């Protein structure tokens, strides 16, 4: 296959996922310029690995490369953001409920219901403020709509056990829920 053909085939298969790639990079790096750099780098890398790709669906494959490129970029430029240590945080409320295992007949408390009219800005700030490893899984699942199987494959390459990934998804969602229901009005937001 000529080089021109190879690039053309690569573009046909992979360029349709440019928005997805940018979205993931943008949510991980939280910066337009950095996301731009990461996306460019990740597509160059993908082209290099392209001969080893034999599938017909390149979305999850490209997102894996974007994810890894983003992490490499962060470790190099903003290593403080990649620090782990949130696994030891206090258990979230959901886990405690499960341990109690009592069917609580308490009535719905309107103040603890998730705000239906949540401010989009507030939501975006709350997601951006999540620790990186929670935020990443949340974006892959909710915005990129990857299946658990696809997320597991990305995690496997990163050396993360599936159980840890699922725990991060649950904790990220739980943390987000707490942020959004505890302060219904405009709140001081960190991150972003």
């Amino acid at each position, binding site marked *: 296959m000529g080089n021109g053909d190879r690039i053309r085939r690569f573009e046909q298969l992979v360029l349709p996922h440019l928005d997805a790639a*940018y979205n993931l990079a943008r949510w991980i790096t939280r910066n337009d310029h950095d996301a731009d750099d990461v996306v460019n780098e990740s597509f160059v890398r993908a082209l290099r690995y392209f001969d080893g*790709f034999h599938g017909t669906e390149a979305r999850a494959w490209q997102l894996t490369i974007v994810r*890894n490129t983003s992490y490499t970029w962060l470790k190099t430029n903003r290593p403080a953001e990649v620090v782990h240590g949130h696994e030891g945080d206090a258990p979230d409320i959901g886990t405690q409920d499960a341990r109690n*295992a009592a069917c609580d007949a308490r009535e719905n408390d309107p103040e603890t*219901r998730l705000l239906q009219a949540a401010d989009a800005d507030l939501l975006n700030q709350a997601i951006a403020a999540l620790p990186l490893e929670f935020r990443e899984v949340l974006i892959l699942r909710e915005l990129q709509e990857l299946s658990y*199987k696809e997320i597991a494959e990305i995690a496997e390459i990163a050396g993360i056990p599936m159980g840890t990934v699922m725990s991060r998804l649950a904790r990220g969602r739980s943390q987000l829920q707490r942020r959004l229901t505890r302060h219904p009005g405009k709140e001081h937001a960190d991150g972003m």
Partner: protein
Amino acid sequence: MECEQVRARVHAYVDGELDVLAAQEIEAHLPGCPACARAIRDQSDLSALIRDRAEYFAAPPGLTERVRAGLASADAGGPRRTLRSRTRREWLAVGLALAATVLLTWAVTYMDLRRVPEQTLEREVIASHVRSLLAQHLTDVASSDRHTVKPWFEGKLDFSPPVRDFPAQGFPLVGGRLDYLDRRAVAALVYRHRKHLINVFLWPATANHGNTPQRLTGRGFHIIQFTHDGMAYWVISDVGMPSLARFAALLQSRG
């Protein structure tokens, strides 16, 4: 199923990742347990909120051209774009080599995890779907009113397709179209979900159509095939499989 087991499966249930049996056990538990029902509803609300309101960053204008230029120059062996920091280039190179090995292994395995469409009908469905998106011929009747779309098919098909609309659940009807699959004229109903288009092909089921729903993936599209009320359905889109599964469930729901 006990509360503890339900709570352990809340996320998988809301994400559509549970098998049918486990999902049914949860659904049997809910009517008698307001607390678990609330837990499910809260998570479901949160997911919906993120899907609908969180920012989905679109690639800025010019990024496609920049990426293309980067690919061309990298491939020609020209000056390669590097990440801005140069201080740890050796470390990056090692990391890249390792990642490449893993990725190559994964890419070959990944191929086995996906069914490459071998059957003619799957290929036809994909081809019809792609054609409808590319050829400016998405609908023959463009209307979100099912009372306009359904009668339009009268006289054009030898069956009357059920036409439903789900705007509240995020799947509004876009219109309908005549299409041709499996050597016969079929109804194609077009729906939208966020920025994605969904084609629903349906026609009277024959003895060849099994009762077991099937999920397939090909050419970047997800496909769900099932039989319902005597009709064979092929639902195809590039939305994620969980969303498509939700939509397929809506098509099969009572109401």
